[in-house]
Every structure is written in C-alpha cells, then in structure tokens.
C-alpha cells in the first residue's frame, strides 16, 4: 500500500461512475457532514433482502466518492444485511490501521488522517438510513 492518500486504486474508485447517477432532490436518502460540507445521496431498493439498483450522488471529496462507489459495488445484488455488516467491519479495520479485503484496502493510507475518517464513513450512514425502514 502506498502512503500517498490519492494512489491509483483509490482514485480509480473515486472516479468510478458505475453506480453514480444524477439523483433529483427527494430521491433516496441524503446525509450531510456539516463539518466539511460533504453530502451523500443514496438510492436503491431491497428485494427479498437483496440490495438492487444502488445509485449514489456525492458532493464531497475523493475519499467520500471512493467510499460510496466501493459500497455500491460490494452491495449491489448481495444480501444487504450481511454485506453491509461485512463492509462495516472492513472499513473499521482499515481505518484503524488493520487489514481489509479489496476494495477497502484502498483506504489504508486514510488511517493516519483522523480528520478524514468521517469522509469515508459518510456513505455508511447513508446506506444504513436507506435500509433502516426495512
């Protein structure tokens, strides 16, 4: 793992548009980090517990973008509850300086930058809020 935060794997995630969409206001759920102005909007649905049609819109930094893309990627088409739990474990490990499977290993250099942890975590708040009604 490179020490530079913005290494290629991370920037590739940040620029990954697979699940990105121009979600109009009122779609899905929106969460904010007032401290840095990041804002994540996330939409999608559950079919028999399987996450489908995940789409995100991020007004935020590259770390937040990358985290939203990674989350959409590992969730889409998977049993939501388990997949979210696994992703959560992975991201907490990697931010604490521990190991994590791909794509979360891309966030390893963020561990040293406490002030940026919330950027990575914001999409997790969004997904929990999106699926909390179910």
């Amino acid at each position, binding site marked *: 793992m490179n020490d530079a935060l913005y290494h290629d794997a991370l920037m590739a995630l940040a620029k990954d548009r697979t699940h990105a969409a121009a979600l109009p206001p009122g779609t899905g759920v929106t969460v904010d980090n*007032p*401290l*840095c102005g990041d804002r994540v909007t996330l939409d999608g649905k559950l079919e028999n517990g399987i996450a489908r049609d995940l789409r995100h819109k991020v007004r935020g930094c590259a770390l937040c973008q990358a985290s939203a893309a990674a989350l959409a990627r590992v969730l889409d088409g998977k049993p939501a509850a388990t997949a979210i739990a696994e992703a959560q474990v992975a991201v907490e490990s990697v931010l604490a300086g521990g190991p994590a499977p791909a794509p979360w290993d891309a966030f390893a250099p963020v561990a040293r*930058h*406490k*002030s*940026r942890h919330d950027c990575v975590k914001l999409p997790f708040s969004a997904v929990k809020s999106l699926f909390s009604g179910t």
Partner: protein
Amino acid sequence: MTLRRHFPLLNRPGPRIAYLDSGATAQTPDIVLDAVRKFETHSRANVKRGVHRLAEAATEAYAKAREQVAAYLSVSADEIVFTSGCTGAINLAAHSFGTLLKPGDEIAVSELEHHSNIVPWHMLATRSGVKVNFLPIDGEGRVVVQTLSPRTKLVALAHVSNVTGAVLDVAAIVAEAKRVGARVLLDGAQRTPHGPVDIPALGVDFYAFSGHKTFAPHGVGVLWAKAELLDAMPPFLGGGEMIASVTTQGFTPAKAPAKFEAGTPPISGAIGLGAACAWLATLDWAAIAAHELRLTGRLLDGLRAVDGVTVIGPQGLQCRAPVVSFDLADAHPHDICQIMDRHGVALRGGHHCAQPLHAKFDLAGTTRASLALYCEDADIDLFFAGLAEAKRVLT
C-alpha cells in the same frame, strides 16, 4: 514532599517565595509549560476543519486535552465544554440553562459564594424574572442545607469556599435538590486543585472550574454538564464552529460540546489544562491531602495562638480545604499582606470577591492564606515570622 521542584517560579534563585495565594492563581509546573511550548513551536494551528499536518496535530492535541480533563473528572469527553474560565463556565450555564427557566422559577445560591456564582444569577433574574434565594451560612462559614422551595430549579454552590475553605456537604444538597426536582451546579474552582473529582459519585448536574487555579494557563476553564442537559440547552455565544449551518435567515447549532464553543477555542490553554490534569492524575493524593491538611492545621493552631486573630471559617480540619482566612484586630488586610510580602510571603487581602460573606461577618475584608501541593513547612514558618512583624507594626 518534592513536588515543589516541578514549579520553576518557586525555584528561582534568591530568597524563598512562600506562595500562599494559590486560591487566586496556582503556580504552573514545567510539564504544563512544556506542553504549551510544544504546541506553539510544533503544531500551532487552528483546530477542526483543517487537513494540513499542523491542523491535524493541533486538532488531535485539543481532543486529547478534552479526554485528559474528562478523565480527571471521571466523565465522558463529549460532556466537557472548554470555556474562558470558571466565570465563563457559570455565565454559560446562567444563559443557556437560564433560558429554559420561567418567571417565578427559583435558583438557590449561598451567602458564601464567589461573585462569579452570584452576579450571573442576579443578571438572569433581571433578564427573565427568575428569583435568586440565598442559603444561609453558619458561624463557621459553612452552607446550611435548608428545605428548598419547591420552585427551585437549580442549586448553584461552591464545592469549596474560596474564603472559609469549607467543603460543601454535597450529599445533603443533592438529596434536598432531588426532593424538589432541582438541578445542582457545583463551582469547583477551589476544589479541582486538590485532586481528581469523581463527578458521577457526587451526583451533580453541572461542574465548573478554572485552568489557572489548577496549575494550568489563564484564559481557559471548563463547564461539565450531563449530556441530556447539553442537548436540551440552547447555545450561548454565537460564531464559527458552533453551527451546523448558517444562512441569511438563521442558523442551526452543531451538537454539544461544539455547540457551546463558539469561535476559536483557547487551544493552548486547553492543552496546558489537559497536561495539568494528566499530571495531577498520577500523583499520590492520599499523601498530598494529608500534607495539605497538616500544614492547614499548623496555620489554624498558630493563628489561634495570636492575640486578636479570628479565623473566618471552620476551626477544625474536618471537611476543610487548605484555605484559611482571618481577621487581625484592626489591621487592614492590605497592610498585613504588604508587610508579609517583605518576608517573601504571598497572601491575599480583601473581600476575595465574596462581599455577601464578609457582610455577614461584618468585615470589609480578611487576609487569606491558600495552599497547594507545593507548599512546605518552610512556607508556614515564613508566614508566622511575617505575621509577628505585621502585628508589631500595625497594632
């Protein structure tokens, strides 16, 4: 005791300084000076929002200070609000908690309070029609726990009196406050220099104190309050860092403790206070308390033996902090202090920001010796040498 060696001012070359004015401002140890200097020369920056390395280091140091202070009080760090001092902390409570009160509600303080725990409540009374009641004090300068009016919403009392040295009977006050559903605020300015405070064990709702009396820099203090209160209370000061969002139409406050820390906080002061609390937490407080009490005993015994001296406060050592105020015949406290100063003894004379207490004892002022962990027998020796001279000259 060898704690004195940590305090550079007390170890300057030249005649000994018998610093018996710690109740006004305590001296500060190397460890605090070094923590502040390290911040200023290695990680000075503004906190929060910044992502460059200095800002990250400053933010972490500030967060760590909050943890260190919280640990000293056995509370959670997000219940710690850094303020400009104990006075700033009590004013915050008077404004923010004060706006939750209604005309006709009552607040109880006591006759021995420091002006910083009286005037903010007088001001609240004028603003909002709340009534301020004064619990009486007895002949030894202790708060008398009385039946509270059922309209009492807050009892705000000094944990330790800065004049009489009396330690409040917190359990009795908390029990009576609970009975009428009142909150309890303790002004801990004179308590925190004498060891860690177990706030949960006290069962109070607010706790306020000052950095500079707790061996840390001036310009910083703490208000601790229960999370539920911090959540319920509106902010006091407005500005940067205490908001979630601002428009031309209004603003949404941030969560506590940020909600109560408008603008750039006293960063270096908080770091110094954190270092002080962390250091104090490592000390042997059973030994220090015994030492402080023994020196207090020497003061009380010695003063009793001087003709014309009256000690204002508890005559014994029970429930007593090392603060001793006295009256010497007709001599004015400033004259006594001035003569004592020639002997290297630092005392304070006057009303000690407690005019109602002095009015009660029918005195314009008293002379006060207040000790801290660095005081030694040699300081008490100098005190009595100076006092003999003051008595000779002035009476």
